[in-house]
């Protein structure tokens, strides 16, 4: 018993030899463990279990093949090429639609003289129509404002909105 005590002391001090450690483990696995040594039994049992734990196998993940199938890649390349051509077309020919103005799309006479250039006629016509629209818009602005105020100040609408809000609050409280 003294021998076991000495080995235990050496074990806890970290000076026990491997053979002594082996003897201790065999002792605690046997049925002859003395009552005063019972407290150490779970510790040596745990060491034994620890020994049995097998380290998990670390598997290196296989590198995924991110390459898309050939057909999809080909489609992507084709779509990108078409988009690039369209973009190039838009950049290089931004005024193409302007050349498509027909000579009879616009008829403009300024002080009795006809404007023969369709582009100039278009610019002048748009300017004139916009000017007229602006006069009409500014003239009707007070009327539009008055209508808006009238709609906002409508008593029926105000009461309807209020009753809806009250109903909503009541419903929420229930």
């Amino acid at each position, binding site marked *: 018993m003294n021998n076991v005590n000495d080995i235990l002391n050496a074990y806890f001090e970290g000076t026990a030899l491997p053979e002594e450690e082996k003897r201790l483990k065999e002792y605690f696995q046997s049925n002859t463990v003395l009552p005063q040594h019972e407290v150490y039994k779970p510790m040596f049992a745990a060491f034994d279990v620890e020994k049995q734990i097998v380290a998990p196998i670390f598997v290196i993940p296989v590198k995924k093949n991110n390459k898309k199938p050939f057909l999809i890649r080909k489609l992507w390349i084709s779509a990108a090429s078409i988009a690039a051509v369209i973009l190039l077309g838009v950049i290089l020919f931004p005024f193409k639609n302007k050349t498509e103005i027909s000579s009879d799309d*616009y008829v403009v006479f300024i002080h*009795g*003289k006809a404007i023969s250039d369709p582009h100039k006629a278009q610019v002048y016509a748009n300017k*004139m*129509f916009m000017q007229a629209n602006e*006069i*009409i818009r500014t*003239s*009707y602005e007070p*009327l539009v404002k008055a209508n808006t105020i009238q709609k906002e100040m409508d008593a029926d609408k105000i009461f309807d909105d209020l009753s809806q809000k009250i109903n909503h609050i009541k419903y929420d409280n229930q």
Partner: protein
Amino acid sequence: MKKIFSIMFVMLAFATTISAQQLEKLFDKYMEDERFNYVFQKKANMMDRLNDLESIEVWELSKSSISTGRQMLTLNSADKSLDESFTREVENALKADKYEQVSIVRNGKNRVETYEKNSDKGTTKVSFIKNPGNIMVTLNSYAPRK
């Protein structure tokens, strides 16, 4: 008797056609006059028509109709008598063509009148803008969308 009715019907149709074109005749009369400026657009595109929009009703009209052209006649003149005579001519043409007056707005010295006429062929809208020394008449035609 049948012949008389036929002739009367043709004459009535002719008279109606003639009277319905009074305003357009006015445009034709003054388009090349050096005192006036004239602008015609064969078909107002979507953006042009958006500029014309003033209310939901007009938006609804624009959804259900196609622009069949718009024209505008402008008189910039210091000659008061010319202003007055041209104004009278426009008013007479509007009456003859049986346009319905939709609104009149006076804003300072500026006066804007709008007129409208509906027929089987579509809707015609006229804006008559009167400023001192400046008169504008715009005519917008719309055909029903098929």
